[in-house]
């Protein structure tokens, strides 16, 4: 039968250590998700713009980058960074670094596509008008195209950010104590998977649902 005492006894560990990241273990979903979203989006902007560059030297590597990372599972990328890169660089990388790097470079490909689509959705007329006014290409990009593009891509951006937030759960595979790993630790001791995984499902849901609500309000104000 449903035994909620395991949640009552351990919820502090799950939320404080797993979600927020304060405790005896290196961990925390938020501690990983927030930098990953910021850095991933940042890198994504570069990649998205690079894909639209006129010079083949810039656009081809960007395209290869996007096609590569969209063609492999995130789990694979995590394993690559975990096992191979430290060996190549002869430098140990802590779990946090491995997870953060993997998420940033992987999600940047997806953010890049969103940025690209957003930029391409801005009417040609805008760019032409900007050039007619005397703005150089980088200037028109910065002051005219990007602001409008960002407004257009906001819904997709938010979706991708929520996806990234959920993807941070994969960091548990390499031992990073995020919300999912915290639940596993407790489950291994108490063996109450139904209650525990349902509980963290609700926690994840609350987080992502509030993210989309806040974003919806933001969009409303910008539109």
């Amino acid at each position: 039968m449903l035994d909620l005492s395991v949640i009552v006894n351990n919820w502090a560990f799950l939320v404080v250590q797993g979600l927020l990241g304060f405790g005896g273990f290196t961990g925390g979903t938020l501690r990983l998700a927030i930098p990953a979203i910021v850095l991933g989006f940042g890198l994504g902007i570069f990649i998205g713009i690079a894909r639209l560059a006129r010079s083949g030297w810039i656009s081809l590597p960007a395209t290869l980058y996007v096609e590569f990372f969209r063609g492999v599972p995130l789990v694979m990328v995590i394993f690559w960074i975990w096992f191979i890169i430290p060996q190549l660089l002869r430098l140990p990388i802590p779990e946090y670094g491995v997870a953060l790097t993997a998420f940033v470079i992987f999600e940047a490909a997806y953010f890049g596509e969103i940025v690209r689509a957003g930029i391409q959705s801005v009417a040609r007329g805008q760019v032409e008008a900007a050039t007619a006014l005397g703005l150089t290409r980088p200037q028109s990009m910065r002051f005219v195209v990007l602001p409008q593009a960002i407004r257009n891509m906001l819904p997709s951006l938010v979706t991708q950010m929520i996806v990234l937030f959920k993807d941070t759960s994969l960091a548990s595979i390499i031992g990073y104590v995020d919300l999912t790993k915290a639940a596993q630790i407790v489950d291994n001791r108490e063996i109450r998977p139904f209650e525990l995984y349902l509980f963290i499902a609700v926690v994840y849901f609350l987080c992502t649902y509030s993210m989309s609500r806040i974003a919806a309000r933001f969009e409303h104000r910008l539109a």
Partner: protein
Amino acid sequence: MRYEFHWAVLWSGQSGRWLLQGLATTVELSALGWVLAAALGIASGAMRTVPWRPLRALATVYVEFFRNVPLLVWMFFWYFGVPQLLPEVIREWLFRHGAEFWAGMFALGVYHGARMSEVIRGGIQAIPKTLFEAAVAMGLTTFQAYRLVIVPIALRLSLPPATNESLNLLKNSSVALTISVAELTFQTRQIETYTARALEALTAGTVIYLVLCVGIAAIMARVEHRFAIPGLIARGG
């Protein structure tokens, strides 16, 4: 110290066989998961656009809850949590017949069903309402209108984002390794533990995924081209 490549480990001994078995499992898992996801996605996507609130609410609850929780959590939930609720007879049968595979399949199918639902819903909402009204005016019930007119068109419209979601499903099948499903990524780890050749094993796995995703994307691009409805092309994200 230069790393010495031993590509031969990939086809000598058990490694090659494991890679193929892993590939087969990945394809099986993804195919079956896809069927479940498509069924759930079409049903719930359509349900979210009908005029009856209870149906809409039900579908919305399903979609919002299942797609906002990470797939990994669902894997653990379906594999460790759900069997405990089943009656003994079914549970025993399940354990004897590869419970981890079915748990993985359900986790994938139900999760991606919720995501597919949004794609289908987008497709349906891109169809002008007049089409639906015309169908009803001709005497079709709502259900018939959906089945014969709306959904087929919506499917054609949502082909690009649906392909994207399907490829996501294929890639997400790798998460099943956490519940001991011997799919492709699991097998690359297996090869690595037996031969200590991490680089070769990971490269093989990565290349296979790339080929699979690229192949499917290329085929679907052709299909999308043939099925696109001029003037009504839904630009998917």
